[in-house]
Every structure is written in structure tokens, then in C-alpha cells.
């Protein structure tokens, strides 16, 4: 790529001296080429700067849509209110629980299942298709199918299974609300882990595996010394990308529990939504939004470093 830039930049006269007119055209083209990235940069910059600076501004003033006109500067008061509100601690701990539990479930099961399907057996292609399917189901469908058809305490499939074994059916969404949310979100994101890890496993060096096996390495040694190190980076990618999306889980909560009972399934995203669009407190919601941005940035920091590293390795 360096040679191209040089060639174009200095328009090296040695190359084809007879095509001077075309050379001029080429130089202009390459400048255009470099600027073809600008529209994307521009719209993304606007998308970042305008709403975010508005959020920062709103977070510093008193601003409730129910009381228009009363917009004085209040400093960090919105942040103080947001952080000391009872919902905040619940929202924070639910967010962390949700992200942590779903990550644990999807990564552990994801590794096990992708190992399981990484060997030849009858119908492998169909099994893969079945396994990745939940990822393509829209979140609102996921939530309602689970809530009604599967987890319903009377007519749900789980209730029937419980009864079959002589146990009392569980009213999942009132007895274990957060666990139920974790379950349905994990169902949706497990295929993502499987999809990435399965692909990563396909590039595992088979000859190296075979050689290690011939040297007498057992399945555990193979797993811990060859497979797991090979999967380290894809696992890190899964963790980081899921974290970004799981921090903002919204539709699954909106359609099942509405954050309740009490604050039991209210995560940060849902808390901010309810303050903004249910209580119309723009200032408070903006302060909460900024806290969510900071949290996501902590996760993003590591992701960008990770992917940045792979970007340089590729060359």
C-alpha cells in the first residue's frame, strides 16, 4: 500500500512517461478516493457530538417536561439526585448481575457446545442452524414467547414439566424475576457465542492437535493447553461485544416485567427510560444517561484496544 501512495504522491515520471495527461487525472482521483471516507465520518461525528453535548447540557439544568420554562442551572444536582435515588443502587446491581450472569452462562455453555459440535457427526449442518437460530429472533418475540408459552405458571411448558415430575410449577416472573430475564437474554445471546467460537475452532491447527495426541496428551491437557489458548481471543471478543449490548438491555424488560416487581428487574437503561419518558424528568434522565455512557466507555476501552491489536496483527 505504501508503494501506491508513493507512486501517486510523486507521480513517478519513470513509470509511463507517455501517459502524462492520465497521470494528472490519477492524482486527482486519489485525492477524491481519500475523501470518500468523509461523509461517513461526518455523519458519525454529528451523531456523537450533537446528542451527547445536549445530554451534558440537560444534565446540568433543571428540566422537566411537565414544568416548562423553569430551566435554571443546577450544577451537579441532577447527578446527586440520580445517584442517591433508591432506584439507582437497584439499577446498578441489576445491570451488573444481568451482564455478569449472561456472560458467564453464554461463554461457558458457548465453549462447551462449540466443542461438542466441532467434530463430524450426522446432521452437523442442521444442528448448527438450530443452535444459532435464537440470535435472529427479535427481542420482543423472544420475551413474549418465553413469558407466555414457556414460563407461564399454569399453561406454560415449564409448568407442565414441573408437574410431570410432581413438583409445584413456579411463577417465574414473580418469584424469580431477574433470573427469568437472565434466562431469556442468555437464550438469545448463547448462539452469538456459539457462532463466534465455532468459527474460531475451525481455524484450530488440526495437525498440532494430532501431534499432541500422539505424544500422549489426554483430552484435558489438549483442552487446556491447545484449545483454550486458541479460543482466548474470540472469548475476549464475545465478552466485550456482549457487554456493550447487555449494558443496554431494554426490550426484554419492557415487554415482560416493566422493571418490576418494585425495582427488581430495573436495569440502568430501563431506569433512565422511565425517568425520561414516564416521569418526563429530562435533567435527571440525562444525568443517568451520562453515567451509562461512562460505564459503557470503561467496557469499550478494552474492546477497542483488543480489536486495535488484531488490526495491526493482520498486516
Amino acid at each position: 500500500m505504501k508503494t501506491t501512495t508513493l507512486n501517486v504522491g510523486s507521480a513517478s515520471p519513470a513509470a509511463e512517461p507517455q501517459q502524462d495527461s492520465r497521470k494528472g487525472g490519477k492524482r486527482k482521483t486519489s485525492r477524491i478516493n481519500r475523501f470518500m471516507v468523509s461523509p461517513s465520518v461526518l455523519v458519525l461525528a454529528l451523531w456523537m457530538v450533537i446528542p451527547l453535548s445536549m445530554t451534558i447540557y440537560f444534565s446540568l439544568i433543571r428540566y422537566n417536561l411537565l414544568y416548562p420554562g423553569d430551566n435554571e442551572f443546577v450544577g451537579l444536582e441532577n447527578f446527586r439526585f440520580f445517584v442517591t435515588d433508591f432506584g439507582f443502587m437497584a439499577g446498578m446491581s441489576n445491570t451488573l448481575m444481568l451482564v455478569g450472569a449472561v456472560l458467564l452462562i453464554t461463554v461457558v455453555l458457548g465453549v462447551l457446545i462449540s466443542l461438542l459440535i466441532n467434530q463430524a457427526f450426522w446432521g452437523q449442518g442442521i444442528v448448527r442452524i438450530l443452535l444459532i437460530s435464537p440470535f435472529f429472533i427479535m427481542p420482543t418475540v423472544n420475551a413474549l414467547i418465553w413469558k407466555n408459552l414457556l414460563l407461564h405458571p399454569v399453561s406454560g411448558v415449564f409448568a407442565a414439566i414441573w408437574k410431570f415430575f410432581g413438583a409445584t410449577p413456579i411463577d417465574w416472573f414473580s418469584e424469580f424475576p431477574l433470573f427469568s430475564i437472565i434466562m431469556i437474554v442468555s437464550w438469545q445471546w448463547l448462539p452469538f457465542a456459539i457462532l463466534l467460537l465455532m468459527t474460531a475452532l475451525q481455524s484450530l491447527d488440526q495437525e498440532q492437535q494430532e501431534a499432541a495426541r500422539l505424544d500422549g496428551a489426554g483430552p484435558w491437557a489438549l483442552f487446556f493447553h491447545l484449545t483454550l489458548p486458541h479460543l482466548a481471543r474470540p472469548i475476549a471478543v464475545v465478552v466485550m461485544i456482549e457487554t456493550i449490548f447487555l449494558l443496554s438491555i431494554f426490550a426484554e424488560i419492557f415487554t415482560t416485567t416493566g422493571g418490576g416487581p418494585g425495582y427488581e428487574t430495573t436495569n440502568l437503561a430501563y431506569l433512565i427510560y422511565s425517568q425520561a419518558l414516564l416521569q418526563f424528568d429530562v435533567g435527571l434522565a440525562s444525568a443517568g444517561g451520562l453515567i451509562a455512557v461512562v460505564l459503557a466507555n470503561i467496557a469499550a476501552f478494552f474492546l477497542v484496544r483488543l480489536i486495535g491489536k488484531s488490526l495491526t496483527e493482520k498486516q
Partner: protein
Amino acid sequence: MLSLKQRRSLNTLLMGVLAWGVALAIFFPIFWMLLTSFKTEIDAFATPPQLFFSPTLENYTLVNERSDYLHFAWNSVVVSFGSTIIGMMLAVPAAYSMAFFETKRTKGTLLWMLSTKMLPPVGVLVPIYLLFKDTGLLDTKTGLVIIYTLINLPIMIWMAYTYFKEIPKEVLEAARMDGSTLFQEIWRVLLPMSKGGLAATVLLSLILSWNEAFWSLNLTASEAAPLTALIASYSSPEGLFWAKLSAVSTLACAPILIFGWISQKQLVRGLSFGAVK
């Protein structure tokens, strides 16, 4: 005593059976949704749940009269295709430029684009809502197209970029030497060479827009509401229309499920921002 070979093939068989068991368990909710969509409402709510019943198609025929399914489906189609087309028009030139005319800033630009994806939607929900309210974009398809284009653009650029990177630069240079214009170079050389990758990019963008359920729930009411919002409206407790919910859900998910199956291998790249291939 089994020989080593026999033990190995028995092992493979058991693993296969286990894999099928896991796959069927994970797929079960989708299968059950499909099954329920062919039940009457009474069968759908029966205790215990019925595996065998006399199937009916009435849910599918009733769905449109009851909930104006086509209106919401049309909104989903317009919004996903609209944002995908605009997104590709922005992403292809950007990825082309960064893949073939790399400068010192290219890597930084790519990472910065990725970082815009990290902005949690709740962080900008309030200003976007108010801006949309003031400009009349609230509950319009145009509004959703703008948002979806912006949130999917980084992924599309990354995906196209990693595919373009695999094309030897010499091919494009040769076309340029032969005197093709920029447009010809992209249209006749670059696009045909990367059509598989770009098709996957289009599919990923369609899937993500079709299933998006934060902005669609917050920014639309009825006029521009896509299928995600229609299905959310079934969450209200009054009236248990499980069979109809299942029929609507099946219709809403089927096309995307098929897209996902077709492009599963290529999607990995887009979903992992090129880190896993």
C-alpha cells in the same frame, strides 16, 4: 471389551446424540412458537400444553384483520431496506477509501467508528427524543431510517473493509491503468469481486434493523411502528391471544431467520468487527 476403534466410533455416536439433544432443546422455543401458531386459542392455552391437536390456519388469516399486520410489516420493510441502502451508499465508498488508500489516520478512524457503536442508546435517548419531537420526526419512518443508518454504519464499514482488504490492490491498479474512471473501477471491478462479502453486509444490516427494539419502541407510536413494536403491544395483560401472538411472531421472524441461516458464516466477521473470521 471394545476395541479402540469401536470405542471411538461409539464415542462419536454419543457426542452426536448429545449435540442433537442440545440443539433441539435450544431450538425448542422457536419450534413451540411455530406449533402454537397453528392452534386455536383454546388449544394454545390448554393445560397441560398440547403436542397433538387439529391444526388450523385461522390465526394467520385473522392476524391481518385484528392487528393490521401488513401496516407494521411494511414499516419494517421500509425502515430496514431504507437504512441498509443509505448505509451501503455511505459504507462502500468509506471502506474502499480506507482499504485501498490507507493513510496514517486510517486505523484511528476505523477504531473511532467502532467506538461510536459503544455509545449506549439511553445516553442519547432524551436529546434524540426531543429533537425528533421538535422536527416532527417522531413516529415517522424517516426518523427510524436515520437512526438505524447511524447505528449500523460502523458495522457495515468494518465488514466491507475486511472484505475489501482481501482483494489484491494490483487488480484495481490495473483497471486504473487501463483508464477506467473511479466509478467504473468500483462498479465493474471492486463490487463484482466482493459481492459475497457485500451481500453478507447487506444481510447483517437488514437483520439488525429488522430486530432493533430500543429506538423502535421509544420513537414510534402507531404510524411508523415496525413489527418489534407490534409484538410488544401483545404484552398487555388483557386478552390472552397466544395463538395469534405466535402467528404474528412466526411471520415476523421467518424472513430474518432464513437470512441468518444463509449468511451465518459471513456474519461472524461483521458481528466481531473483523476480529473473528
